[in-house]
C-alpha cells in the first residue's frame, strides 16, 4: 500500500522531528525572564499562603478530637483573627499587584525596536515578512523567524482570517493576532538558539499544528541569513531536482506557492523560495528532509487533516523529483 508507506514515512519523520525550547520556565529572552521571576515569586508566595490555610484547617479539624473538654472560644478572639487574616490578604494582594505592574514596566513597550518583522497568521501557518532596505530587498518566508541575538525586535502581528495568538514562551508572553487590528510584541533573545512557539488561540481544525520557530543567532549570522533569503531561488543542480522544478511549475503547486525567480507566484500558500533551508515544514509539523517533504506532498490531509493544501495526484517519480527540488531550495 502506497498510502500506508507514505503515512509510515510521515510518522517516522514526526518521531525524529525537531526539538525546540517551548517553556515559560526556561526563559532566554528579556521579557520572558522578567515574567519568570514574577511567576516564581507569586507561586512561592501563594504556596506559603496555601500551606498556612491548610495548616489552619487541619488544626481546626483536629483540635476537638484531641482535647475532650474545651472551653468555648471567645467571639472576640475569632473576630480579631479573621480581621488579621483579612488584613494580611489585602497586603499580599496589593504586593502582588504592584509586583505585576513593575514587571509590566520592566518588559517595556515594543515600539523602540530597531528591527521590525511583520507576522501574518493564517489558517494554519505563519507568513513572515522582512521589510527591505537600500542594501537588500525585502522577502517573505514562513513559519520561521530569524532574529539577531541581544537586540530588541518588534513583531507586527496581523491576521488574514481568524484570531490567532503568537506565543514563544521561552522568549516572551503571547499576543493575539486579531483581524482588523494591529498588535505588536517585543522579542529579544539573550542567547542564540532555536525557540519554538505555537498558536495559542483556538483557530480551527489545525490549531494544534501551527508552530513557529524563532531562531536567534549572532548578528553576523543573522545578516548572512537575511541576505541569502532575499535572493531568488537557485537553479537546481541535480537531474532529480531539475525535473522536480519542471513538475512543480506544471502542477497545481505553482498556483498557490511562490518560488521567487520562477513562474510560480501563487500567494495563498507559503513562499517556498528557500524552503529547504527551513528546519521544519507545514508549520512545525515535521523536520525538513526529503522523506518528510515527500510524505507531506503526497498526502497532506493525513498528516494535517483539514489544512488547505490539497492532495495533488502525482506519480511516484514526480513526487520524488518535487521533493528533491524542494530540498534543494536552500
Amino acid at each position: 500500500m502506497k498510502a500506508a508507506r507514505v503515512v509510515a514515512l510521515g510518522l517516522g519523520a514526526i518521531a525524529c522531528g525537531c526539538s525546540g525550547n517551548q517553556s515559560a520556565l526556561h526563559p532566554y529572552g528579556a521579557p520572558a525572564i522578567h515574567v519568570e521571576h514574577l511567576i516564581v515569586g507569586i507561586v512561592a508566595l501563594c504556596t506559603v499562603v496555601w500551606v498556612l490555610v491548610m495548616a489552619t484547617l487541619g488544626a481546626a479539624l483536629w483540635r476537638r478530637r484531641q482535647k475532650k473538654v474545651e472551653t468555648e472560644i471567645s467571639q472576640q478572639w475569632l473576630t480579631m483573627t479573621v480581621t488579621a487574616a483579612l488584613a494580611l490578604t489585602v497586603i499580599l494582594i496589593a504586593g502582588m499587584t504592584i509586583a505585576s505592574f513593575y514587571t509590566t514596566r520592566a518588559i517595556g513597550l515594543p515600539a523602540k525596536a530597531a528591527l521590525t518583522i511583520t507576522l501574518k497568521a493564517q489558517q494554519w501557518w505563519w507568513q513572515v515578512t522582512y521589510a527591505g532596505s537600500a542594501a537588500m530587498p525585502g522577502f517573505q518566508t514562513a513559519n520561521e523567524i530569524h532574529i539577531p541575538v541581544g537586540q530588541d525586535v518588534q513583531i507586527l502581528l496581523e491576521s488574514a482570517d481568524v484570531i490567532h495568538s503568537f506565543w514563544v514562551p521561552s522568549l516572551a508572553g503571547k499576543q493575539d493576532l486579531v483581524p482588523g487590528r494591529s498588535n505588536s510584541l517585543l522579542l529579544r533573545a539573550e542567547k542564540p538558539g532555536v525557540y519554538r512557539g505555537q498558536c495559542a488561540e483556538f483557530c480551527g481544525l489545525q490549531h494544534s499544528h501551527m508552530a513557529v520557530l524563532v531562531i536567534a543567532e549572532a548578528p553576523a549570522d543573522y545578516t548572512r541569513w537575511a541576505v541569502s533569503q532575499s535572493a531568488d531561488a537557485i537553479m537546481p543542480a541535480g537531474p532529480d531536482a531539475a525535473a522536480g522544478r519542471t513538475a512543480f511549475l506544471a502542477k497545481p503547486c505553482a498556483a498557490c506557492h511562490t518560488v521567487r525567480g520562477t513562474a510560480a507566484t501563487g500567494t495563498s500558500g507559503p513562499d517556498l523560495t528557500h524552503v529547504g533551508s527551513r528546519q521544519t515544514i507545514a508549520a512545525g509539523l515535521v523536520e525538513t528532509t526529503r522523506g518528510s517533504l515527500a510524505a507531506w506532498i503526497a498526502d497532506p490531509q493525513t498528516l494535517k487533516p483539514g489544512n488547505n493544501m490539497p492532495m495533488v495526484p502525482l506519480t511516484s517519480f514526480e513526487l520524488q523529483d518535487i521533493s528533491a527540488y524542494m530540498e534543494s531550495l536552500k
Partner: protein
Amino acid sequence: MKREISHSNVAFAAAAIAIGITSAALGWLREPRELRLDPPVASGLDGLRLMPNGISGTPPESYFALGKPYETDAYNLSQGKRLYAWFGCPACHGDGRGGAGPSFLDGWWLYGPEIVSIVASIRDGRPHGMPPFRDRMTIEQIWQLAGYVQTIGAYTPKVAAPGRDDDKQTRPAENRGPAKILFDQGPVGVHPDQGPSP
C-alpha cells in the same frame, strides 16, 4: 405521591430512550465532515460525461454515491468560497456579478446551471477567455469551487450556503439568495436553449 413520581419517571425514561435511539440512528445515517478524499474517489470525480456540445452532462456515479457533497455540504461550499478568492476568480467575475467574465447572479448560465457544466467550465476552460484550471487545481477543489459558484447564483438560497464575508460588502451573502434580491424578475427567456435557472 410516590406512585406519581414513578409514573413520570417511566415517562421520562421512555422519552430519553426514544431520543437516544433516534439520535443514534440519525448519527449513523449522517456522514462526518470529510477532510480527506481518497485518491481513487478523487480521480473518479474526474469522470464527467459531458454532452458533445460541452454544455450539459451527468456527473460520475461516485458523486451520487457520496451524496452530492459539493452542492449541499456547508464545509465544501465554504472551501469553495476560499478557492474563489485564492484562484483569482474575482478578477473577471467580481463578486459574482461579472466583469470581464459573465455574471453568475443574473440567472444566465451560458453553459447551463448544472454543476457538471460548471465543473467542466472550470476544469477545461471555455472560449472567450475562461482559462482551464486543470493544471492549477485538483479535481476536488474544482468541484468545491463549482458548487460554490452555483450557490452564488441560486435563486432559492441553500441552507448550507456561506454567510457574508468579513470584508467590504458588495452584495447580499450567498445564504440570502443574492440573485433573488438583485435580479428579482429572473431571466426573461432570451436564451431558452441554455436550460432553466437554478
